[in-house]
C-alpha cells in the first residue's frame, strides 16, 4: 500500500528524522493560516498524489508571500496532474502540502527496500540525489553505493557511518546524516515498510540534513498489525473498480486494453494476458479470482468486469482443479441473465464435469462460446473483439 508524501513525513518525524515544518490542506483558504503559522519567506506548495515526477508537471512550486501561496493553491486543488509516472491516466489533486523551503547545498539519494535477491533489506544511496535514480544508475553506476543487510538483521551504527562517508559527508553533518538514516531505518522496520525512498535527502546551506521528499509503500500482508498505516489509505488514488474488487477479495488491476479477463490464479492470469497479447489483443484488466473459484465468487467477478465500459469482450479461463465445472458454468449463466449479456464471452474451463459445464454454456441462449483449450480461447476472443 502506498501513502502520500506528507503522511510519510509525519511518520518519519516520529522516528526522529528531520523533515521541513509543514501542514496539509484541503481548501485554498486554509493556506492563509498555514503560511502565517510557518512564517517563512519562501515555502514549497506540493500536490499530494501517489506518483513521482510531480515537479516537472506543475505539481510542485516554490512560492514567496501569502498571495502567491494562495493563488498557487487555488490553481493546484482540483487540477488534473499527469506525470511521467501516472501513465496516460491523470490524477486529480485534492490535497496540497505546504512546507518550509530550504536553501539546498547538496542533494543526496537514500532508499531502503526489501531485496528479493538476498531476502534481506538493501539500502541504496547516491551522491547524485534530486533526479531519477534509474537514470543515475545507468549513466553513472559508480555514484551508487549499496549496503545489503542479511535477512532479519538490523542497520547498525557502523553501516550508517559508512554510508555517510560514502556520501562524502564530514563532521557534524555526517553525524546528523547518520541519525537521520538510523531513524528512517527504524521506521522501515517498525512499520513493516516495503520501500522508503528519500529523494532528495538534502544538506542545507545552514548545515542541516533534511528529508525534502519521501515516497513510502508498505507490506499489504502486515497491515493487520499496522492500523496507523492502514488508516492512511486514500481511496481517491484507486480505480473505483479496483476498490470494489478489493471488497470482494478479488485481485484486480485495471489495464489499458479492451478484453476483460477473469482467471483463477495470479500466474495463470498473467499467462492469459500474455497469450492474448501473443494473438494481437490486449487485456483490459488483470483478474485473479483468488482462493476457491466458487460459483458465487465467479459471478461477482464476472459482473465487475462487465461493468467496465472499456471491455468489448470477455475471456474466462478457469482451471477448476477441485471445483465442479458445471457449478461454475451455472454461476456464469445466472450472472449473464442478471446483466443481460450482449458482449462476446469466451469460456475455457478445466476440472471435473467439464462436459456438463460446456453443455450448460452452449445451451444458455447467450453469446457464450465454450472452448476446450486456452489457446483456442485466446484466438477466439481476439477475433470476436476485432469484429465488433
Amino acid at each position, binding site marked *: 500500500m502506498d501513502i502520500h508524501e506528507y503522511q510519510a513525513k509525519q511518520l518519519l518525524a516520529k522516528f526522529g528524522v528531520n523533515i521541513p515544518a509543514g501542514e496539509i490542506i484541503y481548501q485554498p483558504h486554509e493556506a492563509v493560516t498555514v503560511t502565517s503559522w510557518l512564517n517563512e519567506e519562501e515555502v514549497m506548495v506540493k500536490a499530494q498524489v501517489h506518483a513521482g515526477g510531480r515537479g516537472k508537471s506543475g505539481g510542485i512550486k516554490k512560492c514567496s508571500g501569502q498571495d502567491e501561496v494562495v493563488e498557487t493553491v487555488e490553481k493546484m486543488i482540483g487540477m488534473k496532474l499527469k506525470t511521467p*509516472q501516472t*501513465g496516460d491516466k491523470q490524477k486529480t489533486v485534492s490535497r496540497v502540502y505546504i512546507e518550509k523551503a530550504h536553501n539546498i547545498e547538496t542533494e543526496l539519494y537514500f532508499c531502503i527496500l*526489501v531485496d*528479493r*535477491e538476498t*531476502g*534481506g*533489506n538493501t539500502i541504496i544511496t547516491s551522491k547524485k540525489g534530486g533526479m531519477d535514480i*534509474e537514470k543515475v544508475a545507468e549513466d553513472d553506476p559508480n555514484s551508487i553505493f549499496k549496503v545489503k543487510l*542479511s*535477512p*532479519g*538483521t538490523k542497520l547498525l551504527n557502523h553501516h550508517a557511518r559508512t554510508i555517510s562517508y560514502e556520501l562524502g559527508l564530514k563532521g557534524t553533518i555526517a553525524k546528523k546524516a547518520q541519525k537521520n538514516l538510523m531513524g528512517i531505518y527504524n521506521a522501515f*522496520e517498525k512499520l*513493516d515498510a*516495503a520501500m522508503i525512498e528519500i529523494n532528495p535527502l538534502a544538506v542545507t546551506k545552514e548545515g542541516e540534513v533534511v528529508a525534502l521528499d519521501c515516497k513510502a509503500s508498505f*507490506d*499489504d*500482508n*502486515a497491515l*493487520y*498489525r499496522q492500523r496507523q498505516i492502514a488508516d492512511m489509505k486514500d481511496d481517491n488514488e484507486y480505480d473505483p473498480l479496483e476498490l470494489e474488487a478489493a471488497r470482494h477479495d478479488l*485481485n484486480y*488491476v485495471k*489495464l*489499458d486494453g479492451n478484453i476483460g479477463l477473469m*482467471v*483463477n*490464479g*495470479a*500466474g*495463470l*492470469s*498473467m*499467462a492469459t*494476458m*500474455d*497469450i*492474448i*497479447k*501473443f494473438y494481437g489483443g*490486449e*487485456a483490459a484488466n*488483470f483478474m*485473479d479470482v*483468488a482462493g476457491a473459484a466458487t460459483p458465487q465468487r465467479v459471478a461477482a467477478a464476472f459482473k465487475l468486469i462487465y461493468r467496465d465500459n472499456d471491455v468489448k469482450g470477455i475471456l474466462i479461463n478457469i*482451471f477448476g*482443479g*477441485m471445483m465442479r465445472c458445471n457449478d461454475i458454468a451455472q454461476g456464469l449463466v445466472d450472472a449473464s441473465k442478471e446483466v443481460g449479456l450482449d458482449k462476446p464471452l469466451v469460456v475455457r474451463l*478445466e476440472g471435473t464435469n467439464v462436459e456438463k459445464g460446456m453443455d450448460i454454456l452452449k445451451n444458455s441462449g447467450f453469446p457464450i462460446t465454450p472452448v476446450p*483449450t*486456452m*489457446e483456442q480461447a*485466446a484466438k477466439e476472443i481476439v477475433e470476436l473483439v476485432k469484429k465488433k
Partner: protein
Amino acid sequence: MAVLITRESKIICQGFTGSQGTFHSERAIEYNTNIVGGVTPDKGGMKHLNIPVFNTVAEAKKKTGCNASGVFVPPPFAADAILEGVEAELDLIVCITDGIPTSDMQRVRREMKGSKTRLVGPNCPGVLTPGVGKIGIIPGHICKPGRIGVVSRSGTLSYEAAVQTSSLGQSTIIGIGGDPVNGTNFVDALELFLKDDETDGIVLIGEIGGTPEVEGAEFIKSWKGEFKKPVAGFVAGAAAPKGRKLGHAGAIVNSGAETAEAKKEALKSAGVTVAHTITTIGEAMIKAMEN
C-alpha cells in the same frame, strides 16, 4: 526415488483441524499420502480424520517419527509454525499459507541459517509426487507418474504444466510460491532434479519480479558433460505493466532484469527451450528431450 516426497516420507499437517487443513488433508489421504499425524495447539490427544492430533510438532515427531510437515496455519501465526518445525528438525516443511508479512519471513530466513530443514513456500501450492503422495493443494488427478520434474512459482501454471506433460508424466511437482522472501528457490529445485535418477527432464515456470529465474539460468549454464538434463521454461507476465503488482506479492516489475523478456533471454542463453505461451510448454519439453 523422486524428490522431497518419497515412499519413506512420514507427513504431519500443522493447522490440521482448521477448515483448510482439514479439507486438504482429506484430499491428501484420498491420494494415499502417508499422513501420520496433525498438530493443533490445545487439541492434542483427540483424533481428527481418524489420525492422531498433537499439541506440538516436537510431540508429533516423538510419537510418529514424522519427517515432513504441511503448514496450513493463518498468516499471523504461520512464521512461528514454520520455526516450530525447524526446531523439531524436520527434513521438509511446506508452507501453503498466503499473506505472511515479509518481515516475518525475513526472520524465518535468519533463524533457518545453518538448519538442516528445507522450506518450500510460503504462498505456494505445495509438493506432489505422482502415485506417492502430496503436501498442499495440487489436485492429484491432473498429475501422472513419470520422469519430468516441474518447478513453478505459480500454482495454476504448475497445473497447466502437469496437464501438458501428461504423455511424459512427472517425477515430482514443486510449487515454490510467489512471495518475495521464500524458502526453496529455482536453483535448489533444479539441483534436486538434477541429482534425482528418476527425473529425465525439467520444466521451469517463472514469472516477473525478482531474479530467481536468472539465478536458475546461471546454475543451468554451469552444468557440464554427462551431468546435464534438458530444461523447458516459461516466464509469465510479458504483457504486465511496469510498477503494478499482479496478484503475487513478488510479481512486480521494477527493473529491467525483472521483466519476462529479460528472464526468457537468460534462460535461452543457458540452453533452455523457452515456450512463448504457457500452452506450448509441453511441446517445448518434448523438443528439449529430443535435442
